[in-house]
Structures are given as C-alpha cells and as structure tokens.
C-alpha cells in the first residue's frame, strides 16, 4: 500500500511534453498581447 502511494507520488502529473507545449503557448500569447516584441535573432 505504502509502495503504491510512493509510485503515485513519484509519477509527474504533467509530462515534459505537455510542459513544453504550455511554455510555447504562453510565449505565443505574450507575443500576441504585445508583451514580447521584436525578438531578436
């Protein structure tokens, strides 16, 4: 029982994939809102 709980706790709720998508969407929204402007390269 305790082991099961440990496994459940260790498992991340949101995958790395999803975090990456969320970050990209937040950046896109910041660009759309004009908060991020003229990103240089």
């Amino acid at each position, binding site marked *: 029982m305790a082991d099961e709980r440990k496994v459940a706790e260790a498992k991340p709720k949101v995958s790395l994939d999803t975090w990456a998508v969320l970050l*990209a*969407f937040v950046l896109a929204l910041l660009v759309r809102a004009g908060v991020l402007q003229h990103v240089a390269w």
Partner: protein
Amino acid sequence: MATTAAVAVRSENANWFVRVARLIPGILLLAAIGIVGKWLEQSINGYTKAHHIVFPNIEYVLWAIVIGLAIGNLVKVPAIFQPGIDTYEFWLKAGIVLLGSRFVLADILKLGGISLLLVFIEIGGSLLLMTALGRAFGLRPKLINLLAIGSAVCGVSAIIAAKGAIDADDEDSSFAIAAILALGAISLLVFPLVGHAIHLSDHGYGLWAGLAVDNTAEASAAGALFSDAAGKVAVLTKTCRNALIGFVVLGYAIYWTRKGQAGAIGNKAAFLWQKFPKFVLGFLVISAAVSLGFFSKGQVTDLANLSRWAFLLTFAGVGLRTNFRALSKQGLKPFAVGVMGEVLIAVLTLGLVVGANRIWTL
C-alpha cells in the same frame, strides 16, 4: 489538520522552487555555448566577407554541437550543471511547437501528406530490416525490437516508451539507446556531406534527414546543418514519424502480451493518447493560429525567432550529452547491427526521397 495541510503545500512549493533553481546553471551553460556558437558564425562570416575570402558558411548549429562535444568529452562537467543540461529535450519540444509559426496549414497538409506516405514506407522497411539483421546476428528478441522501434520511429523516446510497454530489460534498452545516440552523432557529420555531394534540394534533404535520422534533436540538427529551409522540413517530417510512435509501440506491446511476456494493455485509446507526443498537437495549433491570421507578420517573425532560441539550447545539449567514452563501453554487436541497419535505412530513404522528388518535384 489545516496547519499540516498548509505546511505540506509550503513544502511542496519550496520543493518546486528548489527543483527549478537546480536547472538554472545547466540552462545558462546551454545558452552560453549556443551564443558563443552564434557569435563564431557571425564573426567568421563578417571577417571572410570583409576580406573577400571564399569560405563556407559554418552554421551556429555546428559550432554549438562541436563546443558541446569538446566540453562534454574533454572536461568533467560538474554535477551542478547536469539537471539543466538534461532540459535540452524540453527546449526541443517547445521549439518545435513554436516552429509551427513558420508553416501555413496548407504547406503542412501538402508536405505532411507526402512525408506521411514516405514515413509509412520507412517505418515498415526499417522494422523489417532491423529485425532481419538482429536475428542474423543472434541478438536477444526484445533488444531487436527496441533497436527496430528506435530506428524506425523516433530514437530514444520510442525506446523508452517501448521499454515499459514490452517489459524489456534495462540492459537491452541502454544498449539500444547507446547505439541510436552514437549513430545520431555520426549522422550529424555524414548527412550534410552526402546531401551536398549529391546536390539534394533543401526540401529533398530535409525530407531525407527527417526520415532517416532517428533522434528528433539530431534530425533537427542534421537538417539545420544543411540549411534553414532543410531544417524546417526535417522537423516536419520527423514530427510525422513521432506522431506514429503510439501505434508502433502498441503493436509490439500486443505481440509480447500475447506471448505472455508483457503486462496486459487496458484501454487501447488511453494507451495511444499516453504515448502520443503532445508537441505534435501544439505544433498544429500554432500553425493553425498563424494560418487564420491570429498573429501579425512581425509577431510571426518573433515566434520563429523564439523557436530558433529554443533550438539553440537544444543543439548545445546534443553536443554536451554525447559522451564517446560512455558510448564506446556499450556492446559491439548491437552497435554493428545498428550501423548496418542505419546505412541501409539511409539508402532506402534516400531512394524514397529521390523517387518522391521525381513525382512531386520537392
């Protein structure tokens, strides 16, 4: 009781903060390597142009990888940098989502349609080839499967996804991962040279790199080493391959479950969703938003530049985590099978690309 809950929340927040803080040194190292690479590209270009010297343009991608390789293999990188270095895949995925801004949906449908057709042929051919080679060399069945999945679909992620699904040994999966990573590093050097030698177009080369190079980071880098346009196509093609990861892994999982050597699969739709790379959806969402005029022209440029920055961190990470000493410690047989299989897959996919070019003029 309420106090205990408040303490638990505070401790969770503190843990989260510590975890994020631990990433910072490594991310700064990735950024420093990438920026030095970018500076070298611009400085050398500026110097050669100013002095009328004919010199090939060496992209920042190559500099970032080479500097990363040099640091990772010649110096013992302090452990404090490791968590941040490991974020290179996170930046890769965020970069791919933002790269969606550089594709109009119609392009994705056209190029993605061609890519998908070739991807189906590539996956079928690669699975058959690797399985035949693995059997001929007497490798263990699950190691053969991992090598086949890694070379057919998408490198390390596919191997990790398949490992759990078919209950493969840790040893087999580390063999397969090492072989795929070593071959990815070799392809970074070989693919651009071959592409230029046989005068492939940007589209043709990008398609080839996306079909034949296994790991997404290396496929993107191999494409970008040829040209910016080739890098775009390589990422799109590789993304099509990634999208099929769940189906291939599910097929193998069902096979091993029927043999009684892997855990049963409950809901197949849930399994497919769990294995499906979510960044593929993010890429399509951003592309759809751009196609529908949600962003102005200047904002699309900003998104494309953000994607370039994310890739810059990725390419630095590709160099840093490629450790030749660790790779050479892995078994020779799986590596030999991998090399032979990859060479054959590269030839097969090059044939596919040349054939597709005759039909659709890529």
